[in-house]
């Protein structure tokens, strides 16, 4: 069955630095991959989607890459701010033979940005 791993449970960085979060998946090739942000006590919020034929996607200070050979997506936050502190979840699309089912989420990486 498919497996999703996010590099670490917690990442601590200083304000102004670039945060890099990793999402690895195994046993299949998703058609797209999504990233979400979750604040304590709140539901996840959709941030970005990248498709298998896209190498990179940007939105303001966010950048996502998708390497289908390595089966990995990287999520970058440049010029990080304390307000970026949250848990970030990756969610590859379901396998083709399960199309129409639902997203499977990684366990998340909690980012803390200190001033």
């Amino acid at each position, binding site marked *: 069955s498919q497996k999703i791993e996010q590099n670490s449970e917690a990442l601590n960085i200083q304000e102004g630095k670039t945060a890099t979060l990793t999402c690895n998946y195994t046993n299949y090739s998703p058609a*797209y991959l999504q990233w979400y942000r979750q604040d304590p006590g709140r539901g*996840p919020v*959709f941030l970005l989607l990248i498709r298998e034929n896209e190498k990179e996607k940007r939105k303001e200070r966010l950048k996502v890459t998708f390497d289908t050979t390595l089966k990995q997506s990287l999520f970058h936050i440049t010029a990080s701010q304390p307000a970026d502190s949250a848990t970030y979840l990756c969610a590859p699309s379901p396998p083709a033979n399960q199309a129409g089912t*639902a997203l*499977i*989420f*990684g*366990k998340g990486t909690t980012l803390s940005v200190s001033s």
Partner: protein
Amino acid sequence: DAGITQSPRHKVTETGTPVTLRCHQTENHRYMYWYRQDPGHGLRLIHYSYGVKDTDKGEVSDGYSVSRSKTEDFLLTLESATSSQTSVYFCAISSNQGADGYTFGSGTRLTVV
């Protein structure tokens, strides 16, 4: 969150009692989902719906049932609550199987004592 509401926000119930959580949307989206979130496990899919009266099981469906009698409401029922079902429950909606992202509700924190 705009367009999707969950009720109740918090509930404490006793072991063995039935519990129903409600998810209501005003977006007219076809797809609705129930997840539970627990420390160390992340979000896990319980059930999902791809239309009125069309539902299917997810990864952790044992002990749960769902119903969707109209587009806007998706109900999750714990038939006989157990302590292992203490969790935060999230509902999500999407318009095209999630290809444009899911919109999540604010969650229901359920405690079974």
